[in-house]
């Protein structure tokens, strides 16, 4: 199969970018894969794509680059195709409209995958007949503004497949968006096995990682840790990540006198070795569209104490088996969950083992197989769109039938330029 990804900016850093590389790298073992980045703002991508993947861009915004597009009039003219209520609208333009349209009208892949709502709209409206149109939603329907939901509603029926990261979100799309003929399917994000030994559970550290943003509710985690510290002063908390809430959280730590127990570590890439320094992971968000950090921590052998927030945690954690789900917004409940695991070494070790095992279902090899089965089914069935599987599908048949993907190694997504906290 020839599979083509369309992504906002493949040269940056972020959850969708990492997820796309993890999936694309794995699919590239058996298929022709390219990644087309709408924007390019730097020379080298932060994540290294597999050597078999073709990476390209449509609009060059590197100042001083010979192909610099930022001076073009069209770059300054607002976009018409890209939906105006989309979060990235300001970065889109008549130039992106034009270049994406030209790219899609020339694209002869078997499958094209959009990685955000605005690009899904382009694909729904502009991909050639015979190309399987796949839209990925990395956020949730609930988190889209009403205006965007309306804009998507009129266009998404033209997709063949819409994927969400959770069953709960797939359910929401099926119930509320009326998408006749569109296969709405939950496919979790792939998370590779870390390239390091799992944590051994001996370090008395709780670890959290994510942007220091209000939705992550690190204020609650810090308050919860105040209770933990009273009972178990030998345990401490590291929070990795940067963000606007840093000063506020710093002040909270100081006000509570937690400066010997709670540390704001700053951003860390890669994060895996930092998980491995802990024995419990904590996620206290009020909303997690998927819950990537939960899976990452589990793959490093950490049981996760997480708030049972919409949508991801409850679909990832088997409560009481490989982690603990606690009430959203409740510092006492978070402290209780942490102390349960802190105070019972055997339980913690058992959950750690289960976390390692249960998180294997997120391995890129497994996730790529789910996509592949789905594409294969759609393309061979293909009746409504008429013989779209001619050509390159045949080339991939051997791979399809024989294809077991190698278990992944985290090194593939290690940034080419590392950064320490």
């Amino acid at each position, binding site marked *: 199969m020839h599979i083509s990804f369309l992504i906002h900016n493949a040269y940056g850093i972020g959850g969708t970018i990492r997820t796309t590389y993890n999936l694309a790298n794995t699919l590239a073992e058996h298929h022709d894969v390219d990644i087309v980045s709408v924007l390019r703002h730097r020379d080298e991508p932060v994540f290294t794509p597999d050597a078999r993947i073709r*990476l390209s861009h449509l609009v060059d915004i590197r100042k001083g680059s010979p192909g610099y597009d930022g001076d073009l009039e069209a770059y300054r003219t607002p976009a018409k195709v890209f939906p105006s209520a989309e979060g990235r609208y300001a970065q889109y333009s008549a130039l992106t409209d034009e270049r994406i349209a030209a790219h899609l009208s020339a694209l002869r892949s078997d499958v094209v995958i959009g990685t955000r709502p605005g690009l899904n709209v382009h694909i729904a409206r502009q991909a050639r007949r015979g190309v399987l149109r796949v839209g990925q939603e990395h956020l949730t329907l609930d988190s889209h503004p009403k205006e965007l939901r309306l804009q998507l509603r009129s266009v998404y029926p033209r997709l063949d497949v819409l994927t969400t990261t959770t069953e709960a979100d797939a359910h929401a799309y099926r119930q509320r968006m009326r998408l006749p003929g569109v296969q709405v399917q939950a496919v979790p994000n792939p998370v590779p096995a870390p390239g390091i030994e799992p944590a051994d559970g001996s370090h008395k550290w709780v670890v959290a990682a994510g942007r220091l943003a209000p939705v992550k509710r690190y204020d609650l985690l810090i308050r919860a840790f105040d209770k933990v510290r009273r009972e178990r002063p030998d345990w401490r908390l590291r929070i990795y990540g940067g963000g606007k809430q840093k000063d506020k959280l710093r002040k909270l730590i100081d006000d509570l006198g937690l400066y010997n127990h709670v540390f704001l570590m700053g951003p860390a890439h890669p994060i895996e070795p930092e998980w491995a320094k802990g024995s419990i992971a904590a996620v206290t968000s009020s909303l997690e569209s998927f819950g990537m950090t939960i899976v990452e921590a589990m793959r490093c052998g950490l049981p996760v104490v997480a708030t049972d927030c919409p949508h991801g945690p409850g679909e990832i954690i088997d409560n009481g088996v490989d982690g603990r789900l606690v009430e959203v917004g409740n510092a006492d409940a978070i402290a209780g969950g942490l102390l349960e695991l802190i105070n019972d070494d055997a339980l913690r070790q058992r959950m750690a083992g289960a976390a390692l095992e249960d998180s294997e279902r997120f391995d890129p090899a497994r996730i790529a197989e789910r996509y592949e089965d789905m594409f294969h089914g759609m393309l061979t069935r293909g009746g409504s769109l008429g013989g779209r599987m001619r050509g390159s599908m045949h080339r991939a048949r051997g791979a399809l039938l024989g294809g077991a993907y190698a278990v992944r190694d985290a090194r593939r997504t290690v940034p080419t330029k590392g950064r*320490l906290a």
Partner: protein
Amino acid sequence: MTAVFTRGTLDGAEEATTGEPQPIAPRADCIADSAGGLTFDVTDPGEAGAAHLLLRLRESDPPVEVRLPLAPAADGSLRAALPSSVELAEGRWNAYAQVEGGEPRRLVPGVNDLRSLVDRAPSGSRGHVAVRIPYATKQGNLSVRAWLRAPHTEVGELRIDGTGLTGHGRVYGTALTGAARIEAVLRGDVSRVLRAEVTPAGTADFGFALPYAELADAEGVWDLWLHPAGDEGPRIRLARLLDDVADKKPIFTYPATRVDCVGGQVEVGPYYTNDNDLAVRVSATAVGTSGA
């Protein structure tokens, strides 16, 4: 308009027409052991000849270098070991890979597995403390931060209240006596010295208390020293070195306290210096908030 492919083209012929690909900097994964040793796994530079990992002490003239042979490892990378027995002077060491006859190429960091450095508690039996923490520089290159201190005073938890700073520490490479004390020395005016009591708990562990009232009379930075045997023995900087955090300053931070002084009020608070030594800063209160 079609996409312009910029890297990873499918066939080699196409790649050849796009000119030489940019050389990718060799990358090193580091694993630390609890004894202070480091293992570097370097992506194979792909050139023939004996290869070395080169550590070069920054700002050393003539350059101080440590060369470690890079030997093929099972996974196709090249491995070099820096055992704790190889001394690295205190400072920042830039890391390079060098193939025989070639120029050293700066390494970029891959995965630094430093879990065994977390909460390190060396026995102290060797009389010194050796610390090497690999880290990514601001430019994204690999360097190793090293300390070699004999003797050494490791600072533990600190407590701050309205009147001063209390804390715990442990000495390595020497013993505490009943005459032990801490001295705060004003940076830039070493004649200004304040003494503080220490409370030994055995021959290595101690508690200390540093009242802010006297420190508050001089704005500036007070560096803290332990005199484990009073006037008789050495003096040792108070520092925090025994973990995986190369740069403590932005992570181990402490609240400042407003303290009365001769001219009104100042803010006093402990911090870790760029060398991870403990100091106390006395600074003017923010304008407009004094007297609050």
